[in-house]
Structures are given as C-alpha cells and as structure tokens.
C-alpha cells in the first residue's frame, strides 16, 4: 500500500503542467492539423477539403523558396555560430584580463529582443545613410554600397548575419559552462603525457564537450526552423519573397491573405520537419542516458 501511495505523488504534481500542456500545446496542435484539411478563411464555417491544401502547397513556388531559405539558414546556423562560439569560449576560458567584460559584450546581443535587433540592423543596412554602407564607402573600396535588404541575391544572407551575430554569444556561454565542467586533471595528465594544445583540444576537450555540442546543434536547428521575427521586421519576406522563410510564409498566408487552412498546412509541414529533429535529439539523449 505505501508503495502505491508514494508512486502517486509525482503524478499529482504532474497534473497541473499536463493540463496546461494539453490545453495550450496538444489541443491547438490537433486543431491546426484539422484546419489544414479545411478551406477556412477566418470568417465562414470551415469546409473539409481533404489534402487539397497540401497538394497546392507542394506546387507553390513560394513554399520551395521558403523551404530552401530555411535550409540555407539551418546550414549557416549549425556551422558559423557553433565554430565562432566554441572559439570564443576557448579563448575566454583562459584567464585573460577583462575576460568578464568580453563575455558580457559577446552575450549582449542575446539580451536584446529580436525585434530590436532587426530594427537596429535595418538602420545599419540602410542603403544610403546606414553604418555598413557609410563605412564601405569611406574606405574607398566601393563607390556605392549594395542594397543589403533590397537586392534579392543577398537579402537572405544579410538577415542570417544578424541571426548569427545574436547566436554566437549564446553558443559561447553554453560552451563556457561545458568547459568549466571538464576535470582539469585530465588536461594535466594529457600534458604530462606530452600532448600539445591542439591534440588535447581534439582528443580530450572536444569529445568531452559532446553533450554540449548536441544541445547547441539542436538549439541551432530549432532556432533556424522557427526563424520569423528578424524576417518579419526587416523585410517581411521581401523583396518578392526572396527572404521568405516558412514561418513568415505561414503568417502572410494566414493573416494577410486570410487563408487559415492553407497557413495551417504550412504549419503542419514545419512541425513535421521540427519533429524529425526533435526525435533525433531525444533518441540521442536517451541512448546516452542508458550508457552512463
């Protein structure tokens, strides 16, 4: 008897979060899936139309532009900020003067709201009076700076740079925490055994940082899939969809064009993609737990 009583307690504690989770996460998710099978316009009664939204979606140019842009974002996100963040963490993990100041400086962008970052960079990218082009022109390298947010070939990268600028400090902090947890004796032992800095980095530090790297990668993947704020503030997906990402595409279709059903279909696809990565991550974490 006492055994069961004790077993119940965790579940009692779980009730509240589970209810909240069902109401705010699970139910809207199911409802969205249902909406994606309708032609709801936000006003009239939804009409069931089967998989028509999905068929249309897979034939939509903007969908492929957005998907490709998301993938480019993902590619940039799992490489650049991770490498830069790790580099910074390695540098700042040693006791150099002003180390706290640098850590704070690099983490600062993360504290700003995305919308604020977007606005500030929007001004910096201003074709005429912006910081970037004014600097470029003052160096005399170019006669006229590019339209960072108006040129369809570079607009996406201009936005990704902002996202990376923001992400680097975050990755750095995660790696710093990871580095602190590495037992210094291991490194000392390696030095005694004659390993140089490079070798101990590749053979000891990096492998020991694997759990952190997994988390960093997962965060990067998820952040790149839900990219929305910067795009919405800086270009709204323009010019002519050149910087559209799935989340922005979904927003425009749902709330600008009032095609709620179609927007829901985009949301479902985006969810499926994210789910794939989440399952991969959970599988990895659980495997690790069993090992230890």
């Amino acid at each position, binding site marked *: 008897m006492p055994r069961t009583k004790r077993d119940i307690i965790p579940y009692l504690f779980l009730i509240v979060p589970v209810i909240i989770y069902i109401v705010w996460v699970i139910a809207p998710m199911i409802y969205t899936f249902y909406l994606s099978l309708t032609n709801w316009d936000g006003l009239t009664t939804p009409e069931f139309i089967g998989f028509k939204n999905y068929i249309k979606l897979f034939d939509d140019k903007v969908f492929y532009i957005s998907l490709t842009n998301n993938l480019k974002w993902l590619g940039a996100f799992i490489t650049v900020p991770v490498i830069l963040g790790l580099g910074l963490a390695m540098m700042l993990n040693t006791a150099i003067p002003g180390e706290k100041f640098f850590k704070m400086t690099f983490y600062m962008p993360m504290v700003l709201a995305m919308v604020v970052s977007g606005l500030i960079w929007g001004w910096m990218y201003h074709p005429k009076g912006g910081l970037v082009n004014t600097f470029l022109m003052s160096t005399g390298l170019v006669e006229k700076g590019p339209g960072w947010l108006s040129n369809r070939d570079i607009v996406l990268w201009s936005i990704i740079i902002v996202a990376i600028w923001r992400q680097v400090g975050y990755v750095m902090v995660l790696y710093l925490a990871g580095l602190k947890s590495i037992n210094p004796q291991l490194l000392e032992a390696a030095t005694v055994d004659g390993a140089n800095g490079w070798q101990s980095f590749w053979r000891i530090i990096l492998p020991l940082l694997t759990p952190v790297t997994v988390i960093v990668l997962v965060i990067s993947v998820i952040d790149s899939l839900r990219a929305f704020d910067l795009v919405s503030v800086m270009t709204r997906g323009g010019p*002519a969809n050149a910087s559209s990402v799935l989340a922005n595409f979904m927003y425009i279709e749902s709330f600008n064009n009032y095609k709620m059903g179609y927007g829901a279909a985009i949301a479902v696809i985006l969810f499926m993609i994210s789910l794939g990565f989440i399952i991969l991550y959970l599988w990895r974490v659980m495997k690790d737990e069993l090992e230890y």
Partner: protein
Amino acid sequence: MTRKSFWITLGLLTVLTMSLTACKPETVTVVETVIETVVVEKEGESIVETVVVEKEVEVETEVLVEKQIVIYNSMHGDPDPRAADEEIVKNFMEANPDIEVIHSIVAHEDFKTAIRAYLTASTPPDVLTWFAGNRARFFIDNDQIMDISDVWESEGWNESYPKGFQALSTVDGKQYFLPTSWYWWAVYYRVSIFEELGLEPPTTWEEFLAVNETLKENDYIPIAIGTKYRWTAAAWFDYLNMRINGPEFHINLMLGEESYDDARVAKVFEYWRVLLDNGYFLEDAAAYSWSEALEPMIAGEAAMYLMGDFIRDSLPDEIEADIDFFRFPIIDPSMPIGEDAPTDGYFLAANATNPDTAKLLLAYLGSVEVQTYNAEELGRLPTNSGVDRSLFTETQQKGMELIDGADFVAQFYDRDTTPEMADEGMNAFIAFWDDPDSIDTLLADLEAARQEIFAEE
C-alpha cells in the same frame, strides 16, 4: 517542478494584485459621492495602458448599473488620428452620460490582421472602422455586417451624402456601410525644385518623361518611392493601367473578369519599364518603407512622389509649404480619367451585442459635427455634404477638384481586388521592379493565380 509552481503562483499573484488595483477606484466611488469612472483601454506598441476618466455626477448608484455600453474598435493608430478619435468618443460620452464607450485603438496593419477574429468572436465589437469597396463587400456577402438602412433613413443621409458614396455603401438596396472620409492620390512634388529648373507640372506622358529627364540631368532623384511594403508600387500599376487601358478595364481586372496575360496588361509594364530603365526611381526602393523614402524628398534630393494625401501628415510644416501636387499625367487622351480615392468609414458587426447604442454612436460619427471636426483636425475630406465647404483649405479644394474632374473613382489596388490576388499582384510588381525581363513569366503566374483565386469564389 517546484520552480514551475513557484512561477505559476507568482504569476497568479501578479494578476490578482493587478486586477485588485484596477478595481480600486470603482469600489470607492460606489460608497461615497458618485463619481463615474470610465476606463478607456489604449493599445500601444506592446503595452496596454488604461486611462481613467473621472467625473462627478449626482445620481443614485442604481443608475450606474443601468449604464449602457457600446464597444468601438478603431484602427486610427497614428498619433494625430488617435487623438482626434479619442476626442470624438469623449464628446459622445459627454453628450450621452448614460452610455459608456469601450474604445480600443489598434495599429492599422494589426487591425487588418485581427478583424476576422473580432467578427467571429462570441461578443464581437459593435462599431468598427473599415474600408469601403471590395473589402467591405466581402463581409457583407458573408453576413458579418449589419443592415443600417434605418440609420441612413433616420439621419437623412440619403439626402446629405452624395450619390457616389451612397452607391459605395449599398448592396441590394440596403445600406451597410457609413463612409466618413476619403483622400485623393496624386503626384506630389517639390515646388522649389521645379521652379529652379523652370519645370511645369506635366500633363502628358511625354511631358512627364521630359520632366524626369531634366531632373535626372540635374542630379535630382526624379521619383521617390519605398516599396518595402509593396503597396506604393501598386499605385503605379493602378495609374498606368487606368491611363493606358481606361478605368473600366482596370476595375474588371480587379474583379477577376479580365486576364493578367492580356496584351493590354503587358503594355502597362512596357511604360513602367521606361521609367525603371532610365533610373528615374529612387535606388534600392525595396529597402525603404513609404515614409523612409520620403526623407530624400524632405531633404530636397528627390522631386516627386506618387502618394495619397496622407503624405502631408508626415511632412514638416516648412516643407509642406513647398509641396504641391498634380494629376497623374494622361497617357491615352481617348480614355476616361480614373483616379484612386480610397474611402474609409464604419460598420456595425452583424452580431453586435449592443445594436441600439451602437447605432447612436454611428449616427454621431456620420454627423456633420464629427465630420467637420475631422476635416479641421486631420484635413480629411468629409463625405457628408452638410459640412461647410468654405472651411476647406486651398489644398483640400484642389484635391476635391481633382476628383470632381475624374470620370471614375477607384479605391486602390489592394482594396479593389481580393486580399489574396493583391498579395500575388504586389509580389509580382516588386519582382518586376527587380528584374524587368521576367515580366512574361510573372504575368503568366499572375494569370494562373487569378484563375484559381476567382474560381474559388
């Protein structure tokens, strides 16, 4: 888990404290001498601030309970219109002490996003701001807008509103909409630059091109435009199409009855392309919003801007004195003249919870008094012909003449066609702007979109 519960508890406590604080003035008033408090919610960028208007009235407490309410949602989010809107509501409540207006102001774009949620809510707002034309027609067809023929009748609007505005509000002989203000579109220009170069406002396409060329030769940016939000480009399409192919073709295209792969549409882009190829437009237009693109014009670097009359709201006074406007040049003299003159107004939600008080407020909003106030405060052109025309400034008179001289008045690209089609169309305009050679593909895509969008309806 404990941490989570802690945050939940903290959150609940905060909400509780806040609601208690919010209730405080009301409980006090009930006990002693009666002070009516009216809480007006204003939604700003992200904060919701409440303004409590207090006034002393010597009445029994029971009267307070009987107080009727009306919910009014408006999109007058810019500073000047917001102040005017609040003043109007205040005056209305002073004149009708037994009515409380629950007034919320939401920014323009957010309002457009939220309106369908408002209308389908279990308690929709009673009075809402909206656009006349196709955008209102959609809601009328879906039974979301209340028939207000009785208000039109009792207020005598059938006599005091010009025929054009009556037609704009009427479907199947019943009135559903109250148009209250409108503005014109025209090419605005810096008078001093024109004088310096000895230029006259052009009336034909050839003259227009010549003006552009002279400006460019003298290192001025001939035409300012910011296409970040795309609709500024749609104005060029509207005008070129109406000038080249006539307003009738234009409006039929908007209604989905003409096709985008028509040779006449292609011709519009040929004319447009001349301006682009010659570099008459502000460079990197896609990087600017419409008001950011106004900066070079204010700085005296750009000379012209095709824009609605609200452009003057954003100009410093000393620049405003140096700004004048002219009718978009005539291209084919044999075509009737069409102009864009978007009309804004109000409607009542079909499921309004307080229809009687809502009709009172609506009657007030459509009255000569309020329209005169708006014309004076904001320079908006009134729809009620009862407003004394001698009050208008020279600029307003000129704008009204511009529209009086038009054979056809359109609303605007994204108001005349469906939101979906407008989205496709405006994207195509921007893509064309960036790569004029792609126009054939773009038009083929637009035509495919048109067939799909209008087949659904």
